[in-house]
């Protein structure tokens, strides 16, 4: 069990990293892009906007913590 937990913790750390909110925001932005594209609405702007919002937010949280 401990070994499984360690393996899961390693993969979580490897994929998600220091701030899980970044990963969640990316998934949501990809879902919004897919939804808008499926509806025939231009959606190329969603991910760049997500970067512009997410990066300052995660930095702000890190600075506040330090």
């Amino acid at each position, binding site marked *: 069990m401990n070994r499984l937990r360690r393996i899961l913790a390693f993969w979580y750390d*490897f*994929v*998600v*990293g*220091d*701030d899980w909110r*970044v*990963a969640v925001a*990316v*998934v949501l932005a*990809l*879902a919004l*892009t*897919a939804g*808008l*594209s*499926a509806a025939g609405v*231009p*959606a*190329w702007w*969603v*991910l*760049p906007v997500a*970067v*512009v919002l*997410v*990066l*300052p937010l*995660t*930095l702000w949280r*890190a*600075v506040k913590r*330090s």
Partner: protein
Amino acid sequence: MSAGALFLAVFLACAVEAVEALTIVLAAGTARDWRSAGIGVGAALVALAAIVAALGPALELIPLGALRLVVGGLLLVFGLQWLRKSVLRASGHKELHDETAIFARQLAAADTAPARSRGAVSDWYAFTLSFKGVFLEGLEVAFIALTFGSNQHDVPLAALAAICAIVVVAGIGFAVRAPLARVPENSLKFVVGVMLTSFGVFWGGEGAGAHWPASDAALLVLVPAIALFGLGLIAVLRRQRLRGEARDRQSEVTV
């Protein structure tokens, strides 16, 4: 994406991780046993090569749209994490990665660990230290090489870039027998973060069904725009830190 850009992105990412792995291997070899450390490096490289060999052809079988969606998302998460770290370090909110200090810490830890042999490995501690260092630092690079390579249908070129970076860093490291403290590691990390984020945005968007204005040429706007955005954030955070320090000094004087 041109072959040159693919090579450069993988080479830089691999060079950053190779510098970190080199520090660990040098500590294991210097403090303990070079032979066991070398076997650890070899075993880790074989494990990484097996992962690349198994996943490389499998990735090429996945439909391009699905591959770009998953890979784009992962690259975007990785890229934002790399950018986050490098912006925090460049603005002084997080300590720079100091290879000399890490080397000293690893040496001290290696000095106190008991010696134990297993099979052909005379010093198990040196073996596991260098195996873990190379494997863990190399895993992310293997992923970057595989995803960039498979998206561009050129895994061999990506693998060549990774091998070249390892050979260059290892060659310099073993020639000077010291951690590469003078490599501008944070700047390289920033550049790789910008590239991972830009390609993550581009491929993730395409995979999710979006159509980029001007198609591939959109990358020529995305890469410099994200780089400028990152540099702007460094400037803002640095100014904020200096202002905070000045305020602290002033309040100390008035007290």
